[in-house]
């Protein structure tokens, strides 16, 4: 079973069918996805700005990050659930969509950057927790994090303008409805 088979299984599942047959499902799920993505980006931004030494300098890095991370993870969970629901509605077209693939890569890069920071620079946080200036490695991770998450949002929005196909499709034709 390769990735394409998994995509087709998700698309043909009851969830996919439910997403396609309920007219209000897509707008509601998309709106929740925007709210989740906005919360992930905003909360990550608060931590990244602290690491870059912009605001919140009177509070320790761990205080700021500890407070924000609950919200980041909860919102990320909601984004994954709503993302899978949107994917299930049109799994086959998303599977072959370049913008969608780039988005997943950007997401993976943002996750890898976060992991590298967590298991790298963050291990010595006790030494610089209350300092206004973070080590260079932490600043680089924070700057990369902002760029990658903004990138994720940009490519994600781009998916909606590709109509799922990599060739030009006239605006008045919705190929999604003609291919099962």
């Amino acid at each position, binding site marked *: 079973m390769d990735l394409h088979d998994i995509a087709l299984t998700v698309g043909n599942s009851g969830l996919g069918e439910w997403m396609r047959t309920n007219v209000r499902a897509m*707008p509601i799920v998309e709106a929740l996805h*925007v*709210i989740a993505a*906005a919360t992930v980006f905003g909360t990550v*931004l608060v931590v990244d700005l602290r690491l870059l030494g912009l605001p919140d300098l009177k509070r320790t890095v761990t205080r700021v990050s500890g407070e924000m991370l609950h919200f980041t993870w909860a919102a990320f969970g909601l984004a994954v659930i709503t993302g899978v629901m949107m994917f299930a509605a049109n799994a086959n077209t998303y599977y072959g969509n370049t913008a969608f693939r780039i988005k997943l890569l950007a997401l993976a890069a943002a996750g890898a950057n976060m992991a590298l920071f967590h298991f790298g620079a963050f291990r010595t946080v006790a030494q610089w927790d209350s300092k206004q200036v973070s080590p260079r490695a932490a600043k680089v991770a924070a700057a990369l994090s902002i760029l990658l998450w903004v990138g994720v949002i*940009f490519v994600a*929005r781009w998916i909606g303008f590709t109509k799922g196909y990599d060739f030009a499709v006239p605006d008045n034709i919705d190929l999604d409805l003609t291919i099962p």
Partner: protein
Amino acid sequence: MEHFAQWLQATPLSILIQSTSWLIPLLQSIHIVMIGVVFVAVLLLVLRVLGVARTDEPESVVWARFAPWIKRSVSVLALTGLVLIISEPVREFTAVSFWLKMLLLALGIASIAALGSALRRDAAASRPLAVFTLLLWLAVIFLGRAIAYDVEVWGALSFKA
């Protein structure tokens, strides 16, 4: 309003924006990034009023920390939103979600200002008002996405139905 929308959609400025293929996705992306900034700033102000987050800081400090971010991001949202309206006025002005969004947006801004007038003086801000503010902003984001689905969301109530 219908005539105005059609006139606006036919202006050279509107046509220029419509025909620049990358401009609308770019503006929408900037709009979403700024929604992240304003929403989390509002969320943290509300959580401070409810005593959930940033309780180590006085209300006035939390207000001073986030109010400038709210003002700047709302300005960028208004600007990108305005260009998006100019590019597709018929789509916006015929959507129930658009008008409802504008109404709740005005209430949402007034509601932050009301919270701010208490927070700035370190006076206890109203908790129900804080919860109401958060709900207003959630509704504004929801309605923004719903503009593209007016008939699906509003059914017979939609002007497009």
